[in-house]
C-alpha cells in the first residue's frame, strides 16, 4: 500500500470516518441534534475539500480496485453537495413529521460514501460494495418515517426489488469475470475483444446494464421509483433521485467506457439498446406523469424521464455524451432537490398536502415559495435561460454528434410533453384559487432557506452562465 492508494480514496474515507464519528457522538452525547448536523456538514465539506485537493491528480489505488482524481472527484463533489443540502433540509422536515432520529445523519453519510465508492470503482467488487452500501442505507432511509404505512411500504418494496436487481447485477459481473478472466474494468477493456464465448460476455453486459438501469430508474426497470419516492421522506426522495441517480450514472459511464474502449464487436447494439431505454424512459416517464395528481409522484415519474435524457448521453457513447451527463447531473441536482425541498416544506404532519389541488393559489399564500418552485419547474421543463435547458442542450448535441439525430428529436418531443405537468403545476400555483383553506405545512427555517437559496442560485447560474460551467468542467 502506498500513498497513492490512500489519496485515491481520501474523499470517501473522510465522509465514511465522519459517519462513524456521528454514530459515536450520538451514543455518547445527549441532546446533540445540532452537533450531529454540524458534524455531518463538516464531514461532507471535508469530502468536498479533499476531492478538490486531489482533483488534478490521476490516481489508481489498491491494485486497480479504485481510481481517483478528475471526473471521479467531480462526482464526489456532487454527492457531498447533495448531502449537505439534504442535511440542511432534514431538520425542519423530520421534526415536523415526527421522525427526527440521529441515525438519519449516519445513514445519510454512509449512503454518500457508498455513492462515492461507486464513482471511484474500477473493479466489479468495489462497485458492488459501493452499490450495496448506498442501497442498504437507502432502504432504511426510505422507511424512516416508521409510523407511516406508506413509508414502510416504500422501504419493503424498495428492498425487495433492489435485492432482485442487485442479484442480476452480481450475476452479470460473474459472467463477465468468467469470460474476460478478471474483475477489473481494465480486464474488460483488454480482453473483451478476444473472449472465447462472446454470448456469455454479452449476457453479462446485459445483466449489468439491467442492474444499473434499475438504479437510475430507467424504463422498463423504473416501476419501483414512484412508489418509493412517494412513500419515502421527501428530503430522502430528493437525495435518492439526485445523488443516487448520479452514482449509478457514474458507474454506468465508467463501465461502458471500458466496454466501448475494448474494441469488442457489437457495441453498436449496446448503443441502440441504450437509445431504446432512453426513449422508453422519456416517454413513459413524461406521459405517465401527466396523469398524476400527487406532486411527489409527478416528480418521481419525471425523474424517470430525466434518467431517459441522460441515457441519451450514454447511447451517444462519446466523451461529449459523458460530459453532457455530468453537466446535466449538476443542473438536475439543484432543480430536482430544490423541487423536492419545496414539496417537503409544504407537506403537513400527516404526510398530506401533496396534490395539485393543494398547490392551487400558492402564489397568494406563499409568493416566495411559489416563485422559487416555478423557477425549478421551468428549469426541469428545459426552458432557457434556466439550468435544465443547457443540460438538455449538451445531451442532445452529443446525440447529434453521434449521428443519432432521431434520438435528439425524441428528446425534444418528450420535453414538450413534460410542459403539460410542469407548467400545470405553475398554473395551479399562480392562476387557480384554492376552494378551501389549506393546512400550510411548515415554516421556512433558516437552514431550509439557505438550501433553497443555493438551489435557486445554482439553477440560475448554470442557466445564465453556461459558458463558465462549461469551462470549469473542461
Amino acid at each position, binding site marked *: 500500500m502506498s500513498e497513492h492508494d490512500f489519496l485515491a480514496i481520501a474523499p470517501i474515507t473522510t465522509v465514511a470516518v465522519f459517519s462513524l464519528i456521528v454514530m459515536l457522538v450520538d451514543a455518547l452525547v445527549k441532546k446533540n441534534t445540532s452537533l450531529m448536523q454540524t458534524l455531518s456538514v463538516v464531514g461532507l465539506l471535508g469530502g468536498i475539500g479533499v476531492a478538490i485537493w486531489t482533483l488534478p491528480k490521476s490516481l489508481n489505488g489498491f491494485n486497480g480496485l479504485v481510481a481517483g482524481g478528475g471526473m471521479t472527484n467531480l462526482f464526489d463533489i456532487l454527492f457531498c453537495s447533495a448531502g449537505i443540502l439534504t442535511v440542511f433540509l432534514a431538520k425542519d422536515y423530520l421534526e415536523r413529521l415526527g421522525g427526527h432520529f440521529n441515525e438519519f445523519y449516519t445513514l445519510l453519510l454512509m449512503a454518500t460514501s457508498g455513492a462515492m465508492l461507486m464513482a471511484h470503482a474500477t473493479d466489479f467488487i468495489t462497485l458492488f460494495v459501493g452499490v450495496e452500501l448506498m442501497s442498504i442505507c437507502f432502504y432504511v432511509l426510505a422507511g424512516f418515517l416508521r409510523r407511516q404505512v406508506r413509508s414502510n411500504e416504500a422501504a419493503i418494496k424498495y428492498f425487495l426489488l433492489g435485492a432482485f*436487481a442487485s442479484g442480476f447485477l452480481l450475476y452479470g459481473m460473474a459472467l463477465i469475470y468468467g469470460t474476460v478472466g478478471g474483475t477489473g474494468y481494465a480486464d474488460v477493456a483488454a480482453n473483451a475483444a478476444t473472449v472465447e464465448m462472446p*454470448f456469455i460476455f454479452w449476457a453479462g453486459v446485459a445483466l449489468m446494464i439491467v442492474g444499473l438501469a434499475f438504479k437510475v430508474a430507467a424504463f*422498463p426497470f423504473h*416501476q419501483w421509483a414512484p412508489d418509493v419516492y412517494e412513500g419515502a421522506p421527501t428530503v430522502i426522495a430528493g437525495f435518492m433521485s439526485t445523488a443516487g441517480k448520479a452514482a449509478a450514472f457514474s458507474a454506468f459511464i465508467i463501465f461502458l467506457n471500458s466496454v466501448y474502449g475494448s474494441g469488442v464487436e457489437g457495441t453498436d*447494439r449496446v448503443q441502440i*439498446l441504450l437509445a431504446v431505454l432512453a426513449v422508453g424512459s422519456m416517454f413513459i416517464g413524461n*406521459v405517465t406523469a401527466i*396523469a398524476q395528481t400527487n406532486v411527489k409522484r409527478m416528480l418521481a415519474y419525471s425523474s424517470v424521464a430525466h434518467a431517459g435524457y441522460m441515457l441519451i448521453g450514454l447511447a451517444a457513447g462519446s466523451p461529449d455524451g459523458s460530459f453532457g451527463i455530468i453537466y446535466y447531473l449538476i443542473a438536475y441536482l439543484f432543480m430536482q432537490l430544490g423541487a423536492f425541498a419545496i414539496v417537503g416544506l409544504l407537506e403537513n404532519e400527516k404526510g398530506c398536502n401533496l396534490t395539485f389541488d393543494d398547490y392551487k393559489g400558492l402564489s397568494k399564500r406563499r409568493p416566495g415559495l411559489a416563485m422559487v418552485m416555478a423557477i425549478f419547474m421551468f428549469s426541469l421543463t428545459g426552458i432557457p435561460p434556466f439550468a435544465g435547458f443547457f443540460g438538455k442542450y449538451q445531451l442532445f448535441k452529443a446525440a447529434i454528434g453521434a449521428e443519432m439525430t432521431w434520438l435528439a428529436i425524441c428528446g425534444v418531443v418528450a420535453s414538450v*410533453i413534460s410542459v403539460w405537468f410542469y407548467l400545470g403545476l405553475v398554473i395551479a400555483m399562480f392562476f387557480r384559487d384554492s376552494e378551501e383553506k389549506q393546512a400550510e405545512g411548515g415554516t421556512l427555517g433558516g437552514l431550509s432557506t439557505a438550501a433553497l437559496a443555493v438551489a435557486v442560485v445554482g439553477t440560475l447560474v448554470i442557466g445564465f452562465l453556461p*459558458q463558465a460551467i462549461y469551462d470549469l468542467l473542461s
Partner: protein
Amino acid sequence: MASTLLPFILLLPFVGFLLNGLLGKKIGSEKAIGTIGTAVVALPFVFAVVLFFEMLGAPPEGRTMHVTLLSWIAAGDFSVDFAYQLDQLSMIFLLIVTGVGSLIHLYSIGYMHGDRGFFRFFSYLNLFIFMMLNLVLADNFLVTFLGWEGVGLCSFLLIGFWYDREFEGTAIKWTGDAAKKAFVMNRIGDLGMLIGMFILFSQFGTLKYAEIASGLPGSMSAEMMTIATLCLFLGACGKSAQIPLSVWLPDAMAGPTPVSALIHAATMVTAGIFLVARNAALFSMSHTTMAIVAGVAVTTALIAATVGLVQNDIKKVLAYSTVSQLGFMFVALGVGAWTAAVFHVMTHAFFKALLFLGSGSVIHGMHEEQDMQKMGGLKKYMPQTYKTYVIGSLAIAGVIPFSGFFSKDEILASAFANGNAILWGVGALAAFCTAFYIFRSVFLAFHGEERFDHTHVHPHESPATMTIPLWILAVLATVGGFLGLPIVLGEHVHVLHNWLEPVFAQASANMHGHHLSHTLEWILMGVSLSIAILGIFLAYRMYVKRPELSDRFAGSFKGLYKLLWNKWYVDEVYEEAVVKPVWKASKSVLLKGVDKGIIDGTLHGLAKLTGEASNLFRKIQTGIAQQYVLVFMIGILVVIGWLVFGGG
C-alpha cells in the same frame, strides 16, 4: 484604463437598478433613493470623461478600444461575447447618455417628489441607462439588440408609469394603452432589425460590427445589400419614430416629463441614428437604401413639423418636434453626412432635453396643466424656466449662435450638396415650421394674458434641483454648436468632424461627396437664418401682437387646418388600411380557421391521445411488487436477447 473603467460605467446603473428596485421600498427616503439613482449615472459620466481625455491623448488611429467582459454563448463556430467597443462614435453617445442622463436624474428628484412610485421610477430609469449603454457600446449586433430590447422595455414601463391615469391620446384612453402602442410599434421595427441581422450573419458568419465592415462587400449582391440595410432601417424607424412607425412617439408623452426628456427626446429615440451611423460603411454600399432613408426622413420631418403647428398640449408640440428633428438626422444619414447626423444628435439632446424639462417645470408649476391655451403670462411667475426655455427655443429654431443653427445648417447644406434642391427645399420648409411652432409655444405659455383660473392655480418657480439642470442644459444648448463650426470658416474648425473622421472614413469613401462653393454655402447659411427669424417673427405677430389672427387664419384655411389638426389622418389611414383588415383576417381566417381548426384541432387531438396513454400507463402501475418483477423479467429477457442474438 478603459478595461478597468468600462465595467464600472456599464454596471453601476445596473447596481442602482437592483438597489432601488429591490430595496427601494425599504429605503423609503426619497433623498437616499434619488442620490443613489443619480450617483450611479453621474459616476459613470465622470469615468467617461476620464476615458474621453485618455482617448484624446491617443493618436486618431489608436482610439478604438475593445473590451470583452465575459463570454456569453459559444456554440460551434458561433459565439457571442459581452464585448464592447469604445471608439469616437460610441464615446459621444456615452457622454450624451450619462451626461444628459445624470442631469435628468437630478431633475427627477424634484419632479417626482411625493410620488408613491418614487423608487420604482428611479430603478426603471437606472435600468434604462444600463440598457442604453449596452446598446451604444456593444461591439456586435446581438449585444446592441439586447440593449435595444431593454430600452424598449424601459420605455414601455415608463410610458405606463402612471398606469392608473387616463390619457387623451389618438384612439387610446389610458397611459397603459400608450405604453402598449409604443411596444407594439417597436416590435414591427425589431422584426426588421432581426431579419437584417440574420441576413448579415448568413453572409458574413459574424455579428461583430468591425468584422462585417472589414468584410464588405463580401459575396453579397447589391440587391441583398439593399434588403439587409432596409431591414435594419425598418428597425431604426421603429425606435426613432420615422414614418410609417412614427405614431407611437406623440402618445408616449403619457409618461412623466423627465422620461419624455431622457428617453423620448435625448437618447433612446436616437438609437436608430446610432444603428445607421455605426453601420455607415454597410449603408453606404446601397444607394437605393440611402435614397429611401433620405426620402422617408424628409417626409417625416415636414409632416411632423406641420402637425406641431396646431398642437395645444405643450408636450405634444415637443413630441412632434422630436419626430421632426429625428427626421432631420436621418436626412443627414441619407445624404452621407454622417458627422452632421451625430452632431445634430448631440445638439438636439441638449436643447430638446432642455425644452422638455422646461415644459415639465411649467407643468409642475401649473399643477399638472399641459394645455397651453390655459396658460399665458407665466414669464413673471417662472423667470428661470422662461429664460432657459427661450434659449432652448432659439437653439431649435436655428438662430445664430445657438447650437441648433450649426447642426441644422450643416444638414441642410449637405442635403443641397449631395442630395438635391428638392430635399433642401422640403427641409427648409420644415425648419421654418419648426421656428414657428416652437415660438408659438413660447408666446402661448409665457406671454400674453393669463388664461388660467387664478382661484385654483398658483404658478410658482420650480425648486433648485430642477432649475440647475435647466441652466446647465441651457449653457450646453448655447455653446454646443461651436464643436461644429462651418468648414467655410477654416480647415480645422469643425472639431467634431475631425474627431469622427476615422470612424466614417470607409463609408465616406463609398459616397461621392460634392463640395459647395464658399459663396453658395454663405448664401445657404443666410437663407436658413432668415427662415428661422421669419418663423419667429410670424409667431410673434400671430400670438402676441394680434392674438385674433390665429383664429382668423384657422378660419380662412379650414381645410389645411383640419388636415393638420387630424395629423394628416395618419392614424385613420392606419385604422382603415392596417388595423381593421388585420383584425378581420385574424378573426375569420387565423382564429377560426387556422388556430381553432387546424392548430387547436391537432393539438387537442394529440393532447387527448397523450392523456389517454397516460391513464393507460398509470393503470400498469398497480402498486403490486410481484407485477413489477414480472415487467422487470420481461425487460431482462429482451435486453439479453438483443445483446446476445441481436447481431444475427
